[in-house]
């Protein structure tokens, strides 16, 4: 971790070994791919049932929520911000999904339309809360950490408030099969169930987001704002609007993930997504998106999300295999987060050194 060459940096840069390529290379994808392979092999040897379709399905039905929210968080971090409120926005949306669903059923809206309307509502709630974050951060100019920490308390408080106030939220159950199938169906069909439908959503969303980041003017502006805000402003980019949009996207992805989570669990409770910000920040930073902004790609992020999913599932199986308590999961999570930002810091330092060498 502390393998940052303090002395003799020049020689190391001229002779780049495989370790340098993996750690300080432009893309984190090779290093992450290697890590994923090592982890899969490790869990495969340590436990009995790791290489089964069941494990595959379990991992890929567990990651969609983190994967979707990570898209929004990637946008925020790329523009140089931070969003701690995603878990609470998800919780507030989850509660509202149940409320809206109940309300729409009472209004007599046909079952075919209902899931789409509910998803629209959850997107709307996420966008609204994200927009509040964005407005406070860009218009009033308050630090994103404080703003989103405030939103974290606010949205979670409102979710609990609703949960106390509405009879339907005492259980929070949704039993409508059409709605639940949105997230529970498998492809190609119910019998030969192999690919969870949520995996399809994740792939579609990532393809769209990668295209936007890579090929659209908005994507280029985003990277410009994140890497040098001042230069971006001079170049005529509306910095405020770009930053504002990232919080809206983050809110929207948290809202969407809320709807997915409720459909998966058939349960919308006010503690949904508690501590999610930890998982998401870990995934995004481990995926090579820099805390300093302006650097990173969604390829790395999705691999990091899968890595975290593999670790979570692998640890459950390890408990059965060698009796390692599953309660170690939070400890492991925290250590991975610190490791991830340590790698990020080392990469930032390496870039700086390279610039110095060039000059």
């Amino acid at each position, binding site marked *: 971790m502390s393998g940052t060459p303090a002395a003799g940096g020049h020689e190391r840069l001229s002779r780049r070994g495989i370790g340098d390529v993996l750690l300080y290379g432009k893309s984190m994808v090779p290093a992450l791919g290697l890590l994923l392979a090592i982890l899969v092999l490790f869990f495969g040897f340590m436990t009995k049932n790791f290489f089964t379709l069941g494990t595959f399905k379990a991992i890929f039905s567990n990651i969609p929520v983190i994967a979707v929210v990570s898209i929004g968080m990637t946008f925020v971090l790329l523009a140089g911000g931070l969003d701690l409120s995603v878990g609470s926005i998800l919780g507030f949306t989850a509660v509202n999904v149940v409320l809206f669903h109940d309300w729409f059923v009472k209004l007599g809206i046909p079952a075919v339309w209902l899931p789409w309307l509910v998803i629209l509502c959850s997107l709307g709630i996420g966008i609204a809360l994200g927009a509040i974050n964005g407005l406070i951060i860009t218009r009033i100019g308050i630090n994103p950490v*404080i703003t989103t920490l*405030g939103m974290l308390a606010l949205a979670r408080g409102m979710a609990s*408030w609703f949960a106390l106030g509405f009879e339907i939220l005492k259980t929070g159950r949704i039993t409508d099969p059409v709605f639940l199938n949105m997230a529970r169906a498998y492809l190609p069909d119910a019998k030969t169930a192999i690919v969870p439908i949520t995996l399809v959503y994740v792939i579609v969303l990532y393809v769209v987001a990668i295209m936007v980041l890579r090929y659209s003017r908005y994507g280029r502006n985003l990277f410009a704002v994140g890497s040098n805000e001042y230069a971006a402003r001079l170049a005529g980019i509306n910095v405020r609007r770009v930053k504002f949009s990232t919080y809206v996207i983050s809110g929207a992805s948290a809202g969407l993930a809320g709807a997915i989570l409720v459909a998966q669990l058939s349960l919308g409770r006010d503690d949904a997504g508690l501590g999610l910000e930890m998982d998401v920040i870990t995934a995004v930073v481990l995926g090579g998106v820099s805390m300093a902004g302006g650097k990173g790609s969604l390829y790395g992020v999705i691999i990091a999300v899968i890595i975290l999913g593999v670790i979570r599932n692998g640890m459950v199986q390890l408990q059965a295999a060698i009796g390692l308590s599953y309660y170690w999961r939070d*400890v492991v999570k925290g250590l991975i987060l610190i490791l991830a930002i340590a790698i990020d810091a080392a990469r930032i330092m390496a870039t700086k050194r390279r610039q110095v060498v060039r000059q």
Partner: protein
Amino acid sequence: MGDALHAAPDHGPKKRSPVSTTLILFIVLAVMVAAFSVLSRDFSSFLNISTMLTNISFSGIVAGALTLVMITGGLDISVGGNIALTSCLVAYLYNLPHPVPGWALVPIALALGAPIGTFNGLFITRLDLNPIITTLGTMAVTRGLGYVLTKSRSILIMEDVTGFIGRTVIPGIQIPIPLVLFLLVFIALFWLLARSKFGRKVYCIGANQAAARASGIRVKRVKFLLYLMSGVAASLSGLILTGQTAVGMPQQADGMELDVITAVLLGGTALSGGKGTIMGTLAGVLILGVLYNGFTMIGFRYVHIRVFQGILLILIVALYEMREKKRF
């Protein structure tokens, strides 16, 4: 007590209008106490005041240490996890087949905060990592270790020494022990920040880190010591909470980082560093403590207070921002 606090000089480096912010805060506090006493008859009862002061002491000790960290431009959000782990460890050790004697629990608990603070401090200063994310990681690690120790159960601990620290009221003068600890910590911190050379270094680092380094201050060492202090302070708070609630569980002090950061910011410490006083934080802690308690007394529930907390945090920072720009 109040007058002595008002007279205390404000030792922020910027002296546009000395004592004003802190004075305003203490006036707000006085108005709030008066208002709640009128609104709720139970508010001014002895039992409530005693409970309120114990709660204030518990979060205040952490807020005091955090003030110094935040003046240097850092942040420590691992305090809640630290407190949870302390309470779990103390309860776990006391419930072993051969229980650790009560007198040994206090030094063990305080010694737990030191490695946690060291861990934070080393990663933040030596590897130059983002303090928010580092301490977010430490929070998960410490709370996670609490889950591992207790296997997610709550462990009862009816023990005299922690009970003395958390639940006892000095007979005669009717002052709860946590309040005594709180005042001692604040006097020490006040001296450290406003009267000692170390305090000048802290302000200097917060105002301009490069200049501080150039003038020979060992920036990394000072910052490291502050994170260490924050860790030990959190453990002391953990002891108080364990004594007060007589239970060790990993969910203790969940979300308390929000309370503490709000209190410090309310006290006039700038998130960007370089500004802030112990007296300001004292006012912030007291105001928030009275506010939450008063709200509960007039019939609000915890969830309402939580919503209010979020708005309050943003509002406070917005007000200070405006004060900075337009100078009202």
